[in-house]
């Protein structure tokens, strides 16, 4: 049984790391699957984007109408890619930080397959028009029940892995992971209970939906990504974290206030709820500043040598800071959230903050798990994603500001409000195209490495030919 964790304390450091990485090899399943969803998501986003300036494209195809492709692109990103890959990465981080092997290799493998089945059912349902109609919760019950069940298995394995850690101080990444592992199931089941299984009445649905969408980003995905940033930035520059106190402040202020948001000015909700959300969005500047300054100072204390992959995490950190500010603006300024600005801020958070951090982590982790070194496609992935995110999200932000200026002037007819956005929408298609290329690049790299690894394993088993050149697994923290 792979279930019982192995203490690696008595082994030498290199052996320890090799054992841990070997136990985590199962995580290649969710990582590869996540990258397939990522590519699919961006292809759907490309169709969505093209449709905005060529509205007759695929007009006869009910499945690929704009109202289907956009939620599919978003859901495939969040549930197919970010949640799945994020879980895989944090499990690996838990093993490395706890100096223990992964608990429950077989259950995790099976649950990962089912997770993907859940996402596939959900995506297919949206394609055929059987969405639930709630943002970020579009998957029908069949898909979401499978998601929850497989999440429960993976989550429990994660908690057991955390429990099996070697004694010693816990590290900020572990706090974020532990919290996030609870946040997601609580949020998801509460929201589904109150929206789909025992639906609340009228505008309460909007309240639950907004509360969930906020938690999904601010608690679950942000928690995972901050765990990744806290782990990789000090590790790559090879210095200890600048300040543990700042990390504590950042963590608790996010944990306490992160859930108070999700609404913006003008929504048909009681005014005090909007006020709470605005205050929440403003208070989130505290964890943002604490975290960003902490990690930035850590970066400054490191050597100035160029470290591969560090750019992913640095850029993600910048987008984290910007994203918090954009969210605050979209919450406070009337109607801004309804323009392209809202969409742009969301996509910058998805690709700039969450995406880049996960990409960097995947590049790093997959090298360790497969034992293959290759720099192919890293540059393509990095630059295509960065420029793509800026041309898509950034241009939307800019277009949104122009659109907003006209939208709040009631004298201007609506077609003229939209006319101003057309050039921005056209440029954004180029951005999405770059994102597709970047996503294809990381999938190609990871798939290539996994292939080499598998071939190597087969050769070892048949014990004949010379194994391909392998690099010893990377140095552990």
């Amino acid at each position: 049984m792979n279930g019982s964790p192995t203490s690696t304390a008595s082994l030498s450091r290199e052996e320890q790391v090799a054992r841990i990485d070997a136990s985590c090899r199962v995580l290649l399943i969710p990582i590869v699957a996540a990258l397939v969803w990522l590519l699919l998501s961006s292809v759907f986003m490309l169709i969505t984007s093209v449709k905005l300036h060529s509205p007759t494209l695929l007009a006869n195809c009910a499945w690929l109408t704009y109202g289907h492709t956009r939620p599919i692109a978003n859901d495939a990103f969040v549930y197919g890619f970010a949640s799945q890959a994020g879980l895989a990465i944090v499990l690996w981080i838990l093993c490395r930080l706890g100096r223990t092997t992964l608990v429950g290799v077989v259950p995790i493998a099976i649950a990962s397959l089912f997770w993907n089945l859940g996402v596939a059912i959900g995506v297919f349902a949206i394609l055929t028009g059987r969405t639930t109609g709630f943002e970020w919760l579009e998957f029908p019950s069949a898909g979401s029940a499978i998601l929850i069940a497989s999440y429960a298995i993976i989550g429990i394995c994660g908690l057991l892995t955390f429990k099996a850690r070697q004694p010693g101080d816990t590290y900020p990444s572990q706090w974020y992971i532990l919290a996030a592992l609870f946040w997601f199931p609580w949020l998801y089941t509460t929201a589904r209970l109150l929206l789909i299984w025992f639906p609340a009445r009228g505008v309460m649905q909007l309240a639950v939906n907004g509360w969930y969408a906020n938690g999904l980003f601010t608690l679950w995905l942000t928690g995972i990504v901050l765990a990744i940033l806290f782990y990789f930035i000090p590790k790559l520059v090879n210095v200890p974290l600048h300040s543990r106190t700042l990390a504590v402040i950042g963590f608790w202020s996010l944990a306490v206030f992160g859930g108070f948001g999700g609404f913006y000015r003008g929504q048909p909700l009681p005014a005090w709820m909007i006020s709470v959300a605005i205050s929440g969005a403003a208070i989130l500047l505290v964890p943002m500043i604490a975290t960003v300054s902490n990690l930035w100072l850590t970066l400054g204390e490191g050597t100035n040598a160029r470290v591969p992959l560090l750019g992913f995490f640095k850029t993600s950190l910048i987008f984290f800071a910007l994203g918090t500010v954009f969210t605050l603006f979209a919450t406070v300024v009337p109607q801004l959230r309804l323009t392209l600005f809202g969409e742009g801020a969301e996509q910058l958070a998805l690709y700039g903050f969450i995406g880049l951090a996960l990409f960097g982590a995947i590049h790093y982790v997959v090298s360790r798990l497969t034992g293959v070194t290759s720099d192919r496609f890293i540059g393509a992935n990095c630059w295509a994603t960065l420029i793509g995110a800026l041309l898509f999200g950034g241009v939307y932000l800019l277009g949104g500001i122009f659109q907003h200026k006209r939208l709040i002037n009631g004298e201007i007819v609506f077609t003229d409000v939209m006319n101003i956005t057309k050039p921005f929408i056209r440029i954004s298609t180029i951005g999405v195209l770059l994102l597709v290329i970047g996503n294809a690049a990381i999938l190609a790299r990871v798939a290539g490495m996994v292939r080499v690894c598998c071939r190597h394993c087969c050769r070892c088993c048949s014990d004949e030919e010379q194994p391909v050149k392998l690099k010893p697994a990377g140095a552990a923290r």
Partner: protein
Amino acid sequence: MNHGPLIFLGVLASFVASWWTLVFAPHLQIGTDKAVEVDGHLYPKGRPGLASQGHQVYVANGCVQCHSQQVQQDGYTFDVVITGAGTNAENVIKVLASVAPDIKADELFAKASDNAPQPVLRNVPQRIAEDAQRRLKRAGAPAQMVFIPVGPDMARQWGMRRSVGKDYLYDYPVQVGNSRLGPDLANVGARPWDDTWHLLHLYHPRTMVKGSIMPAYQYLFEERPKGKQPSPHALSIPEEFAPKGDVEVIPTPEALQLVAYLRSLNVNTPLFEAPATSLAPSSAPASTNAPAATNAPVANPPK
């Protein structure tokens, strides 16, 4: 911070706090909202069958991705009108002249009656309106204040008042929307568009709105060869957008349901929590469907 249980408890407490504040407390406040009686009718009403089916078509096609259904309001102003001559003509004219120096007091006074209320002041803040009303009343003129919600959405005639929770009482799932890539649809049924307009617009939005970026929903229509007698349901599509060949375009049941739903979208009824005045032009007689909860029974022209 070395104890898992400590983190667990802290995280649980903060999660419950956010749930309590933003889900449970609002549920106590608005979760048990009921329909109210406005002018002898219950508001809101459930949608008729076809429109109710259309709601599901709206959801299934993801219309919410581009269309919000929430009218936003920046604030409000007041008009002051007089609805009659009163008892002391000389005095009223004098006060009129001092309240609103720009208007021709005697002309306005002569025209004022119950059926043709005359605006004295337009778009003034509450304090000024109250003051003018008090002075006119003291002079003996039947003066009234008219409550006018203002904001770009009102200027575009997307609605007379802001949207409130009651407007969504019977909808499931509620489709409030977060995007205005398309216009707000909260009151699209109040706009002067008939079924044919909506059907043509769905079939090819550019037939009706030049430069629209809305996708064409041609899959909601059936193209079939023309018979000896054209179908009475066939759309007459402008040459430029019509399909090639000898075919006619018939709306599917889904298209008809969707149009019924769109035409049922009308939440202009004034409520206590969101008072408003009618959008009818000012030349019309004083509206009889006056808001119950306001002191504003008079029509106000949209700008």
